[in-house]
């Protein structure tokens, strides 16, 4: 507040680095944390190889998609507690339609499933916008609706995802060090980067950042929020399909555990739960971190109950470091 407009202009040039550090610092730090964890893992387990790397990418794939879905919604200033059930819905829809079909047919099915669950996500958004009920309540309620629908589609876990489809995620076609699951993850940047640069994507940030200013800037608030939920639905569908591919089965309870893990992942990935701030790249790294930690505990042979404690403490510490700045600045 201390500078006048006039004084500000010439000082700009020297501030670029500091600004970049502020703006992307968290993302860089998350990747650094991932790197440190990877190095630690390799020290703990010197024979860490392609198999283990493949394990990690497979485990991180659905979580990364779930976290991407949550990121979209949170950026727009909402929260989606129905990410898990949406994944389950995509998962069972895929099984019902792919059962006994070949790869090409199944890919067609996948597209339709993506569309259907994107629409379900859009419906989440539409209900929120039309009823003006807070996001957390609507998605809490719709989480039951999607879970019920999934059960209607498929009453019990059933195998039958075609092997060719499973191979899209399992295995590594290019090189043992480039698992297919890693290639599938490219869907995230392929959707994210164009969206981030488009006016529609800016509008999603805008509604999450400051609704009043967004409105005055001519942003259609309702539409932008629905869009955010739709893209969230799309990513959730990707997550559900990823589960289909990694497990080969359809299960009405698939995805249940990803709702809250996705919230941990996005916070760790630097997305502000208040909306409007953060990106998806850090979130992907966070999904890898959260998938790596249980593996490290197994490699170390740590009692899993301690593992759960340690994971909770780790999250607390990381988010507290974020808050530490505030504490120090105040004193």
């Amino acid at each position, binding site marked *: 507040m201390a500078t006048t407009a006039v004084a500000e202009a010439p000082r700009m040039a020297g501030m670029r680095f500091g600004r970049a550090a502020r703006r992307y610092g968290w993302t860089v730090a998350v990747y650094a944390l991932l790197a440190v964890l990877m190095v630690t893992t390799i020290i703990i387990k010197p024979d860490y190889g392609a198999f283990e790397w493949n394990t990690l990418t497979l485990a991180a794939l659905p979580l990364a998609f779930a976290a991407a879905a949550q990121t979209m919604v949170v950026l727009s200033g909402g929260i989606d*507690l129905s990410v898990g059930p949406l994944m389950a819905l995509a998962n069972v829809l895929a099984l019902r339609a792919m059962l006994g079909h070949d790869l090409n047919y199944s890919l067609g099915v996948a597209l339709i499933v993506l569309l259907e669950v994107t629409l379900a996500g859009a419906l989440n958004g539409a*209900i929120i916008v039309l*009823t*003006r*009920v*807070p996001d*957390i*309540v*609507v998605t*809490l*309620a*719709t*989480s*039951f*609706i999607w*879970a*019920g*629908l999934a*059960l*209607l589609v498929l*009453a019990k876990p059933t195998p039958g995802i075609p092997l060719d489809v499973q191979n899209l995620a399992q295995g590594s076609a290019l090189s043992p060090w480039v698992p297919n699951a890693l290639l599938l993850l490219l869907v995230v940047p392929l959707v994210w980067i164009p969206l981030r640069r488009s006016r529609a994507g800016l509008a999603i940030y805008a509604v999450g950042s400051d609704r009043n200013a967004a409105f005055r800037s001519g942003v259609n608030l309702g539409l932008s929020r629905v869009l955010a939920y739709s893209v969230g639905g799309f990513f959730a569908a990707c997550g559900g399909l990823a589960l289909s591919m990694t497990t080969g089965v359809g299960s009405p309870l698939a995805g249940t555990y990803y709702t*809250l893990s996705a*919230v*941990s992942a996005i*916070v760790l990935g630097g997305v*502000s*739960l*208040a909306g409007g701030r953060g990106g998806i790249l850090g979130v992907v790294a966070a999904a890898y971190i959260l998938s790596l930690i249980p593996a490290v505990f197994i490699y170390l042979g740590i*009692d899993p*109950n*301690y*593992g*759960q*404690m*340690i*994971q*909770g*403490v780790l*999250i*607390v510490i990381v*988010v*507290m470091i*974020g*808050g*530490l700045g*505030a*504490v120090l600045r105040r004193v």
Partner: protein
Amino acid sequence: MSTRAVTTVRLVQQHSILVLIALLVALAGLIEIIRPGAVNANWVSNILEFAAPLGILAAGQTLVVITGGIDLSVANVATAAAYIMASQAPYGVTRGIVLGLLVGVAVGLVNGVGVAVFRVQPLIMTLAMGLVVTGSLNVYSQAAIRSVPGVPAVIHAMGSATVLGYVPVSLFLWAPLAALLIVGLRSTGFGRLLYAVGDNLEATRLAGVRGWQVLLANYAACGFLSAVAGLVLAGTVNAADLSLANILLLPSVAAVVIGGTSIFGGSGTYSGTVVGALILTVLNSVLTLLDVPDAVKQILYGAIIVLLAAAYTRVLSPE
């Protein structure tokens, strides 16, 4: 809009609890339609009995939501308190109860430190603390497998006994607690400050309030209330296992929001939450008695919550 209509709208807005009670009555009516004769004194007594633990759990949640936060560790805390109480009870009932409650306060304090001092988002702080509590409880349970977790008679009686045939004993705990909270929120300094902190933390700072003290005390209070809820729940079902209250986490949030407390903080009442807890308990009852497939029940449960919240939001904010 006619003056009379305006007055009616005003009246309803100022007494939003009336809308909620009307919704509650409507749901009870639905049960009576599904199964004539089902709504009787016994039923009312059951509803109160099962709403009590949820209502107390949602009490802590209400306090936190009023300050603009959310506590996702309430259910873990309730479970931990109940389990520790039950497993320590063989060494003394009082000891069990005190230790159980202490666990609640301790976890609440840690949440409070994270939120108030380190400015961590409440959602992530309490989510992570939930993991810590559950992990610790599992470790404890393995260490404690040699002692038998048993719910002492006094807790069992508090959770599920009735007096005069129909009045649940837990009501004698819940009702005074509710009265204390309703009055306390409205007319104690602490209550005022909860609203103030939830409305505008910066403004309370300028008014000379040390916000961290308020938040810290609040999360501790929430932890305490969660622990109480856990003990009551253990009494209601006469057992304490390692996932006792987990099923009440989402309902505790739903009860608060259906009860008209703004998820963004700064407004709300515990009386609304009480009715919200009753509504959810009645809704469970509706679904038990309804003869449709479980999948349809889940869809109905979700749909009814959206409709309730939407109707409520519409009536109360006509702008």
